[in-house]
């Protein structure tokens, strides 16, 4: 299917916070109470519309265990957006946000949009991290913030789409150089900037990490 832009996303955060479940809810609109654990990386894709334009999201869902950190680090390359997820019922997953953020900032493009997500908002009775704490952390570090539930689908759609809106806005403002694929953005085949770039006419493979 044709698209105006392709954005690469990466989902990061501690193991068991619901990264894969968020992705499944977003791409397939369903919830698996017990999901297979992720080893290495898994993928999802979905088309969304922003400002009347078709945008394809290519989503990299990474393993959360610390041992895998050195491997998943290379997956930041070329990401335009990151969803940094913690579990509102497990404080340690919130406490680790700083290390995740340091990692993300260090290994990604400086313009990458980061959305902080407090997941499992349906488990209010077991809440261990206040919503205000998430908001404060996001404010302090310049992130967008939302609480979601992959189970009830609350805010899931919004989390993915608002991140894309932010990226789209940055393109409009000229912050992102869309001709540089290292930014995690690719122009769709029908929008190829100029016919003088023969390699882009096939809409397929050109060098960098996304296509």
């Amino acid at each position, binding site marked *: 299917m044709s698209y105006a832009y392709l954005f690469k996303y990466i989902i990061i955060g501690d193991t068991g916070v619901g990264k894969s479940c968020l992705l499944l809810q977003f791409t397939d609109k369903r919830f698996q109470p017990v999901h297979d654990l992720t080893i290495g990386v898994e993928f999802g894709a979905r088309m969304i519309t922003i400002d009347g334009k078709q945008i394809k999201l290519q989503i990299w869902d990474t393993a959360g265990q610390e041992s895998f950190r*050195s491997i998943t680090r290379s997956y930041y390359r070329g990401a335009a957006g990151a969803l940094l997820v913690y579990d509102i019922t497990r404080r340690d997953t919130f406490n680790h946000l700083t290390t995740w953020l340091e990692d993300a900032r260090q290994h990604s493009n400086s313009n990458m949009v980061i959305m902080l997500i407090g997941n499992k908002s349906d488990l209010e009775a077991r809440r261990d991290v206040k919503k205000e704490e998430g908001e404060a952390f996001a404010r302090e570090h310049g992130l967008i913030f939302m609480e979601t539930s992959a189970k009830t689908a609350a805010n899931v759609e919004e989390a993915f789409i608002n991140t894309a809106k932010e990226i789209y806005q940055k393109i409009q403002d000229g912050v992102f150089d869309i001709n540089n694929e290292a930014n995690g953005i690719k122009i769709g085949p029908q929008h190829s900037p100029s016919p003088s770039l023969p390699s882009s006419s096939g809409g397929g493979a050109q060098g960098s990490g996304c296509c």
Partner: protein
Amino acid sequence: MYEICACRAEDRIKQTCDSDTASVSDCSPEVSTSNREASVELIKLDISRTFPQLCIFQKGGPYHDLLHSLLGAYACYRPDVGYVQGMSFIAAVLLLNMDVADAFICFANLLNRPCQVAFFRIDEAMMKFYFQTYEEFFKENMPSLFRHFSKTNVTPDIYLIDWIFSLYSKSLPLDIACRVWDIFCRDGEEFLFRTALGILKLYEDILIHQEFILLAQFLTKLPEDISSDSLFKSIELINMNIDKKKFSQILASKKEQGKMEMT
């Protein structure tokens, strides 16, 4: 031996349950680098996420506690390795076939093989040599698909990590995975990489036309209806000799090259 380690793991789990989270995180930084015994706390999160469709490893299921003790015991037996995701799948397959003490021995021996040592210790340099060697055989056996993968940036780590860490038990139907294990035990680690190439060969006609995201999705979630006979036929077609050199020889030369570049 198993009993001792299992007991130690139990103590460790009790300890962490008793103490509050603050004190656990206080002591973890100093132990984390040299002693990965602390990773036992992660095990409980993963037990129920191991073969969820079988419904026997979940809390309350007949194998939940066994799998938990086996992995805990291993993390205490090998604190230098600890618990790494992927292990629960291997341990689960063994538990389905033998009693827990034997499963523990097999598990420890299996993880002591060079390839498993490299991967489970996340020895990035060694993993790179394995990937490079694998790519040599990929290029040799399926040159056009190899070019397509390079062009679309589908690197081996994207799909091989899952396949190798779980020894295919997560990515292939269990009966097929067990057949792979049988030959892996007979032929050694090169068979793991031969299987990967067999999978690519089986689906070559589909893969060659796909763009990055479809390739990545396909390889990290293989079709459930994969046929055992056609897969093994396609594995058989894979040539594991390049200019009369075997997998192990090429791996050795990659290591050698790597060492030279380091100095």
